């Protein structure tokens, strides 16, 4: 808020993305805790939940609040405190995002759902373990230059493809970690942003889409219809195409998720996501950098915070304050935030503000 020259009194509303303070922190109705602890008086504070896409919703519904004319200054926050619980309970909690009746009762896990998609993708397009590992290797390398990342250590493909098996064919290094974290942005109408001297970025477009709770209810297992629909609507609102975008922060909760995202968003041909990653096309020095922040894999994945954090990274790149990991000459960035096994997707396109 200091950077944005905003004080407590000028915040009209708060939107907070959190998966489950209920289960992780024994705290329901957590949203009013934000203005409470910040010392604000009676500022409306709303929690939004769409599993791992909760943060993306906090941004999107903050924008809608401003677009409606109701609010001038919105604080959109994402947060999760996950490390209170033992790992087995976190696994169980995350599995609760799958369909309880048909999937959870069958012993599905979050990695398990993506593992089934990884296998289908491998069958159809030949996306192998090495290609998946190359996502993790790249994102770990990117995170070395992110002072806020959870892991800032490079890994090798060899190490990744020999790591502990979690849900065959996904191994430990295919999975994002358990993380505590929070992220926030201040949203104002563009004509009022000029009143602030700090860095500012324009939100060009956004969209949200839903799909069935159960993976087995979807015709396609090698990608997400939600990503396709949300990306298409976002491009339509922005009057842009994938070719116009310079870089993306996508939801790599698992390596296969990044591969499917860059295909489904239209940045690469369907089925080529694995090979282009292995070839370095999505690395910082590649022609289309993806998860230059380190992604969920290495920056960390504090569930509710992730979607906000993607927008914060895009903001930093577009305002030229990304430090050692700054990309040259970027003017349009896109985010994709995924909830559950893709039952919710939220996309945003941001544009350089000057």
């Amino acid at each position: 808020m200091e950077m944005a020259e905003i004080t407590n009194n000028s915040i009209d509303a708060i939107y907070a993305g959190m998966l489950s303070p209920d289960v992780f922190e024994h705290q329901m109705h957590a949203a009013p805790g934000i203005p409470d602890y910040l010392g604000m008086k009676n500022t409306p504070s709303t929690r939004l939940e769409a599993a791992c896409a909760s943060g993306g919703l906090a941004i999107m519904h903050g924008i809608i609040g401003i677009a409606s004319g109701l609010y001038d200054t919105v604080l959109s926050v994402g947060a999760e405190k996950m490390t209170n619980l033992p790992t087995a309970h976190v696994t169980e909690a995350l599995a609760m995002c799958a369909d309880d009746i048909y999937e959870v009762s069958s012993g599905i896990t979050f990695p398990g759902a993506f593992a089934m998609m990884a296998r289908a993708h491998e069958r159809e397009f030949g996306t192998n373990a090495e290609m998946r590992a190359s996502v993790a290797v790249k994102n770990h390398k990117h995170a070395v230059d992110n002072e806020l990342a959870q892991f800032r250590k490079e890994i090798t493909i060899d190490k990744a493809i020999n790591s502990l098996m979690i849900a065959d064919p996904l191994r430990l290094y295919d999975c994002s970690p358990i993380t505590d974290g929070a992220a926030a942005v201040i949203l104002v109408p563009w004509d009022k942003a000029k009143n602030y001297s700090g860095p500012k970025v324009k939100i060009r477009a956004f969209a949200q889409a839903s799909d069935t709770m159960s993976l087995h209810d979807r015709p396609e297992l090698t990608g997400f219809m939600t990503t396709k629909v949300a990306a298409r609507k976002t491009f339509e609102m922005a009057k842009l195409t994938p070719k116009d975008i310079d870089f993306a922060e996508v939801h790599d909760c698992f390596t296969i998720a990044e591969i499917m995202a860059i295909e489904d968003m239209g940045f690469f041909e369907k089925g080529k996501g694995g090979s282009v990653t292995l070839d370095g096309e999505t690395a910082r020095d590649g022609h289309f950098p993806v998860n230059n922040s380190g992604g969920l894999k290495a920056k960390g994945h504090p569930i509710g915070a992730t979607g906000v954090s993607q927008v914060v990274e895009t903001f930093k790149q577009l305002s030229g304050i990304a430090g050692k990991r700054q990309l040259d000459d970027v003017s349009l960035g896109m985010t994709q935030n995924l909830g559950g096994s893709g039952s919710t997707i939220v996309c945003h396109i941001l544009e350089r503000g000057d």
Partner: protein
Amino acid sequence: MREITRVVKAYEDAINQNRVVGSICEECQNISVPPRPVCRVCGSDKIDITTVDAIGKLLTWTVIHIAPPTHLDRVPYILGIVELENEQRLSGIVDLPEGVEPEFDMILRAEFEEGQEGASRLRWRRVREQ
């Protein structure tokens, strides 16, 4: 909500009778497995329950090594998506004999074993082994 409860209950009751059921739309005859309260093809909520042939092919699978607390005693276990007739699909645990590996398009049949409190549990087993 009444309808959701109805179709879910029909499904669970059928499993306990060692059957798999789907919904059939009275308007367009579309069948959905698992059963659904509203037809996905025509949007009608005139839905009946129908028993389906619980045999299909393995579309994809994983082997779960890190399980939730409820399934810790089973690891590693195979979890797969099975495609029945008419592109209907179900998730479930696949039980294969020692030494048999899952394969794409392997033909599986729903079998039922005793679960907790006398309830049945669906398990997918290879047809060949019978």
